[in-house]
């Protein structure tokens, strides 16, 4: 047997990458073979395919599109990265965190509540925690204990991974900013373990965004990113209304770069920092309500 036949080879990745791009509209980089493999391996097993070649054939000849949908799911469902979209994190670092610290220092606030509403495997709330940790090392006017960072998701599997704070090489590379990997993780073999200082800043709970928001505290900052696509128009409107109700009057909402509130909510006013939008509750309506 030739060694070229032994490996899960490049050809298969090229085929699958093309398929995923064409059928699912998800672009995949040349160097993301391990991403495809890690996202789809379970599906290959589940569909009883011996290998990726067979899986690819099955997908290509799948008239019902069932497999195609499963592939989309596997590629996107828990897809997340460190400092996703990059720009909003400048807002967090330059505008929002300094303001939180000032509010705590002046006594205007006792405690700050941050909520990552579809936290997946934890990269989003942990990205916030890493920036906060860094800010607090420079500015001693506040401490981590004055912040409550909550990460919720509907998937227990994602939450387990999030809580454990353990990531493989592939996941570590996605979006990671220079310096943080070295400062905030310990490497053991192929796995990176988030240090406890950061890990313990975040609490994880299962929460379905379709549900009533009563169990959630009033927040100073909400991340609700890349989850609205799972909601119908009607439910999107409901979702944003519920988020609005959970946001303190000077709280902030951050959504995904490919998402928009337009057509779903008029409760928020749009702010912008370095051309990146972020949102806060409209003031007038609040007064009106009170």
């Amino acid at each position: 047997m030739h060694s070229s036949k032994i490996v899960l080879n490049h050809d298969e990745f090229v085929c699958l990458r093309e398929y995923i791009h064409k059928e699912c509209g998800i672009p995949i980089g040349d160097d993301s073979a391990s991403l495809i493999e890690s996202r789809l391996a379970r599906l290959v097993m589940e569909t009883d395919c011996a290998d990726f070649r067979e899986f690819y054939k099955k997908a290509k000849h799948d008239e019902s599109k069932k497999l195609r949908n499963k592939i989309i799911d596997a590629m996107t469902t828990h897809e997340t990265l460190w400092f996703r979209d990059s720009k909003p994190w400048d807002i967090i670092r330059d505008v929002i965190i300094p303001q939180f610290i000032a509010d705590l220092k002046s006594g205007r606030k006792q405690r700050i509540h941050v909520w990552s509403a579809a936290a997946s495997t934890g990269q989003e709330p942990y990205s916030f925690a890493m920036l906060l940790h860094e800010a607090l090392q420079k500015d001693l006017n506040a401490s981590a204990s004055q912040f409550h960072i909550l990460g919720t998701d509907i998937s227990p599997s994602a939450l387990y991974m999030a809580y454990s704070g353990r990531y493989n090489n592939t996941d570590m590379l996605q979006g990671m900013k220079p310096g943080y990997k070295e400062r905030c993780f310990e490497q053991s073999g192929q796995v990176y373990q988030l240090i406890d200082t950061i890990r313990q800043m975040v609490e994880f709970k299962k929460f379905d965004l379709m549900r009533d928001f009563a169990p959630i505290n009033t927040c100073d900052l909400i991340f609700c990113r890349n989850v609205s696509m799972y909601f119908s128009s009607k439910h999107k409107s409901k979702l944003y209304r519920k988020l609005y109700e959970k946001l303190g009057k000077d709280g902030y909402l951050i959504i995904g770069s490919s998402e928009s509130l337009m057509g779903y909510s008029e409760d928020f006013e749009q702010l912008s920092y370095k051309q990146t939008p972020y949102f806060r509750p409209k003031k007038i309506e609040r007064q009106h309500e009170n």
Partner: protein
Amino acid sequence: MYRNSILQRLNKVGEAPTMLTISLEIDRLIRDPNTSAAQIGRVIRLDPALTGKVLKIANSAIYATRHRIVSLQQAIARLGFSEIRRITMSIAVINSFKSYFVDYEKFWLHSITCAYLCTALNKQTNRKANDDELYINGLLHDIGVLVLDQYFTTIYKKVFEIAVKRRFDLPLVENKILGINHAEVGAFLLNRWKLPDRVVNVVMNHHQPQKLDPEHETLGKMVYLANFICNNRGIDNGSGFFPEGFYDDIWDELGLSVEDVPQLIDSVLLETEKAKEILRLGGL
């Protein structure tokens, strides 16, 4: 494909190793409510090596007994049938298989931890599955890896190295190159050795819990999750596999909540320590 030649070869593998036979006999005896401690002692004593190791483990830090246990009779009385069954089973399996290139320590640390973790999961989920059955299933779930290592060393070494180096799912590489994977191989041999269906079925489906026979579902799901928890902690079978996640349905079906995660992680760390002792005192 190697599939057929592998199956043919496995058909020629002889009877189950002696120690395994003895521990299966003990397993059978203990299921019978009329069995006495003396009877169990007699069976264990058939194998002096087994007897010595049982005593060593009975006196280990795991049980922290105050007085030294010097006879099998004492060990059985002090630790109880269930514990004796687990100890003999662990010693039997870790002494029944050689490893050529698979890291023996890593492999058994994974399997024994997994076995203990299954029983911890049983307690935590309050599913009232049979702890001894869980333990055996946890212990044997990956046995196909060692079987392939032992009987098909050259080709399997290649398979294993590819999985390790490129961090691929081991069963996928096995399927691709051998046309069969370690779950099937393990199940095939255990079936030949007349292990009960519940073991064979769980071993067979430990990567595909949705395929479990309904009557073995609870056992199989716990093994599946325990396997995930071990792998997530880096207590893998030597293939360095780091899982992306698990089937959410299984988590819900076992009635676990996210609030259970910290305790599960504590459990795996604790059970690893026990497993290390078993391996140190009961191993080759």
